[in-house]
């Protein structure tokens, strides 16, 4: 009703109130944090020599070299094709699980409803390793089937293979968006279809699913972008056969010997940034339009459950097989591999049982440290990030700060920054900006990079709760004599506690999973589970990789249970 927020300007004399000081500081820190990786990348993109070289001069040569590089075109084509196919696969799987689990009477739907979200908790890197060890060219299942049929059953190192892996990993996102839409669907539209003579499958196909169009479009855009910036699957399954993608192009260029081509990397990273920025812009536009034909009403009609009759078992068994093959076999395979010297169908696993993989990890400081570092980064980093983003959020929604619209753009921009680009950017930032130098080799540079990447996630988790709090609550606090900052500290932030806990859980899990931006940032002393896994994998040691994956999964499960029991927070869904 009244102004968006109470102004916090200071009258007479006092040049700078506490409120303004805090608001400007937070805004400046946010701007620096978001710009820290972007500026070096754009700067390097137009330099003829490495960014740390004082002799470097401005040039556009990097871009002409990039655009005349056949490997880059190949990477571009591969990335776009993989993302498109992945998006379609993830869409089909996600819509099916959302509709069948949410709206039909299949047996075991409660169990499926839990399992379907599990891949979201695990890093894509771990999932990719799982597939590699089970279904890769010399994977356990592959060899097993090969023994039965006497020929190569499939090849995971193809576009189709990778798309299946990435699609299964990204399907839960589609499920999540569609499930909430499905639960709020207007039952009368479906009833109308039933009365004109449509059977349950026809109604699902012709009415229910088309009504999900906005949710499908939105999650498809997210997945397309997510796949473009995905490093794990292309790296684990593409590089062995020399297939290049955007992210692996950057990764291998960055790690190619002692003399990486800085200018080329800068130009490529810049190109990726621009491309994803455009996609995000289009997505926002699309979403605005989508709102117009959303058919879901505020009315609370409880959607009906479709009786699939005798097909209910068929659907249920199909789902069970799907989850069995994509989740239980892959994750179970990781577990099996972690406790064996090697995995082959020729010998029973218990004959190869060993604890050597774990022993190796706990014997060496560097490996052990990667676990404690991961926990520190997730535990402390997520807390720091939530504290920081909660300030950004109250400034954007609950202050008279002059630049709060601009701050919102800054806070949301990191959506367009892929992990690997952020990693390269922060790394160069440490070379370019003297004040960032001391962060080198500490976990703080990781925390900064991860925080920057997750500002939009945390903002999205806190904002809705804040908008539901009546303005009267802050205004009454102001009139009884509290200034802006006291009001936020004593009234608004305490009332936001559930949302802050929720954001903490989300961020903890994503910090634990994150590896792509760390790949360029870690140094001896600041390794994390993801980077150590990558190192073992490069050396072909899949035993310790599996052991670390198992440790990461155990940490995740422990934390998720803890969050549910103690904080009462469910991370997804």
């Amino acid at each position, binding site marked *: *009703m*009244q*102004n968006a927020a*109470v*102004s*916090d*300007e*200071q*009258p*007479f004399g006092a040049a700078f*109130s506490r409120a303004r000081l805090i608001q400007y500081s937070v805004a400046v820190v946010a701007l620096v944090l978001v710009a820290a990786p972007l500026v070096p990348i754009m700067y390097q993109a137009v330099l003829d020599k490495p960014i740390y070289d004082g002799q470097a001069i401005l040039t556009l040569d990097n871009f002409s070299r990039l655009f005349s590089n056949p490997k880059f075109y190949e990477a571009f084509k591969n990335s776009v094709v993989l993302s498109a196919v992945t998006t379609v696969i993830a869409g089909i799987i996600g819509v099916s699980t959302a509709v069948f689990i949410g709206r039909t009477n299949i047996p075991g739907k409660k169990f499926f409803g839990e399992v379907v979200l599990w891949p979201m908790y695990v890093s894509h890197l771990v999932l990719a390793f799982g597939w590699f060890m089970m279904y890769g060219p010399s994977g356990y299942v592959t060899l097993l089937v090969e023994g039965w049929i006497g020929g190569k059953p499939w090849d995971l190192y193809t576009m189709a293979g990778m798309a299946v892996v990435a699609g299964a990993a990204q399907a839960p996102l589609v499920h999540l968006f569609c499930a909430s839409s499905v639960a709020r669907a207007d039952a009368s539209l479906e009833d109308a279809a039933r009365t004109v003579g449509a059977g349950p499958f026809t109604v699902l196909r012709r009415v229910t699913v088309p009504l999900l169009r906005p949710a499908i479009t939105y999650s498809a855009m997210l997945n397309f972008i997510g796949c473009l910036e995905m490093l794990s699957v292309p790296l684990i399954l593409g590089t062995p056969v020399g297939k290049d993608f955007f992210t692996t192009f950057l990764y291998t260029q960055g790690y190619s010997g002692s003399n990486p081509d800085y200018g080329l990397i800068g130009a490529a990273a810049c190109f990726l940034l621009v491309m994803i920025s455009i996609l995000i812009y289009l997505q926002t536009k699309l979403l605005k339009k989508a709102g117009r034909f959303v058919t879901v009403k505020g009315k609370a009609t409880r959607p009906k459950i479709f009786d699939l009759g005798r097909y209910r078992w068929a659907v249920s068994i199909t789902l069970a097989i799907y989850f069995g093959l994509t989740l239980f076999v892959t994750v179970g395979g990781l577990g099996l591999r972690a406790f064996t010297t090697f995995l082959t169908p020729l010998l029973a696993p218990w004959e190869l049982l060993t604890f050597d993989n774990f022993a190796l990890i706990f014997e060496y400081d560097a490996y052990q440290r990667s676990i404690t570092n991961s926990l520190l980064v997730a535990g402390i980093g997520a807390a720091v990030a939530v504290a920081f983003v909660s300030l950004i959020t109250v400034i954007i929604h609950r202050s008279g700060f002059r630049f709060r619209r601009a701050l919102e753009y800054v806070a949301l921009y990191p959506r367009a920054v892929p992990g690997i680009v952020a990693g390269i950017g922060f790394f160069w930032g440490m070379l370019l900006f003297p004040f960032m130098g001391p962060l080198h080799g500490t976990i703080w540079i990781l925390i900064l990079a991860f925080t920057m990447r997750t500002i939009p996630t945390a903002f999205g988790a806190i904002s809705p709760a804040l908008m539901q709090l*009546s303005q*009267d*609550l802050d*205004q*009454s*606090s*102001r*009139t*009884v*004599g*509290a*200034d*802006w900052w*006291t009001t936020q500290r*004593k*009234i608004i932030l*305490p*009332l936001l506690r559930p949302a802050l806990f929720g954001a903490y859980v989300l961020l903890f899990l994503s910090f634990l999973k994150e590896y792509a931006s760390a790949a360029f940032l870690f140094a001896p002393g600041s390794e994390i589970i993801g980077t150590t896994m990558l190192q073992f994998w490069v050396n072909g040691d899949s035993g310790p990789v599996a052991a670390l994956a198992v440790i990461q999964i155990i940490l995740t499960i422990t934390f998720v249970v803890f969050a549910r029991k103690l904080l009462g927070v469910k991370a997804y869904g």
Partner: protein
Amino acid sequence: MGKLIIDNLCKHFGDVKAVDNVSITVEDGEFLTLLGPSGCGKSTTLFAVAGLDRPTSGRILVDDVVFYDGGQQAMMPPEKRNCGLVFQSYALWPHMTVRDNLAFPLEIRKIGKSEQQKRITDALGLVEMENYQGRYPHELSGGQQQRVALARTLVYEPRLMLLDEPLSNLDAKLRIRARRWLKELQGRLGLTTIYVTHDQIEALTLSDRIAVMEGGKLVQLGTPEEIYSRPVSPFVADFIGASNFIDGFAGDDDGDTVNITLAEDVSIRAKARPGVKKGEAVRVAVRPENIRLVNGSGVPGGSNALTASIRDRDYLGARFQYILDVCGTELRMEAEQNLEGSQVDISFTPEDCIAFPA
């Protein structure tokens, strides 16, 4: 300790002039009500005084302390103004108990713990809520929340008390009780108070003076009696007491009352507001409660007498409301009798008729 001067206050939201050149002086200890229909700018005015909203121009002063001065771009932030604002929604902080809600302003004023407890008990005593200190807001009824909200503003002894429709969430009975109690409390504490409402009964019973607003403008400022008996415009006459209006032409003026011709051979006498000119169209306001039935004893001397036809009647329980037709105009009237027939003789005094230029 609390004389408020609002001087040429304006607040524009883009093209909307929510408050348009309003000037009001509220004396120390006075109870002033801002009255007007929804959207007329009452809350905006109140929020400007509280400092929650930056006005477009004008000045607000309390005892020579500048709250806002558009000319000098000086604006005191709300927390420095020491105003007590009671919100329509009460705005009790849901994560704090009643005691903590009251302690918060005292903590900000760095008042010691024992003094805090004493003041909290006193303030809650004033509103008869001292036994609810440990409750959370959601554990209280609407009326109790309203009293706690009031106690929260009383506890730090504000310079001004600002109330934004504080009774609108209460049921009719509780409203009457709360009204009396509020009036009594204000009189006892002698706090300068601005009260916002769109309920005319509340305004008439509570206020020392009433400021009637329309479309962001102040249209009349005066005591309840003045507003009621000498409205400056048909709008005020209608808003306070839901007047009937009859159109006619002004005739001779005898210095006290003026002759109004309603139709051929039908005329009445009425008090004229400034601007009524002979031979020009006028609009006469008559309140339903001032219209009397003519019975056996005849028409009192000097009163206007008219014959009306009954168009419709509504049974209200103890009384009937009649819709009458006088020279083609609709008049409302209330009477206890259930009248027979279709014609009725009515009368009202010239003092109860106010003629405005049409």
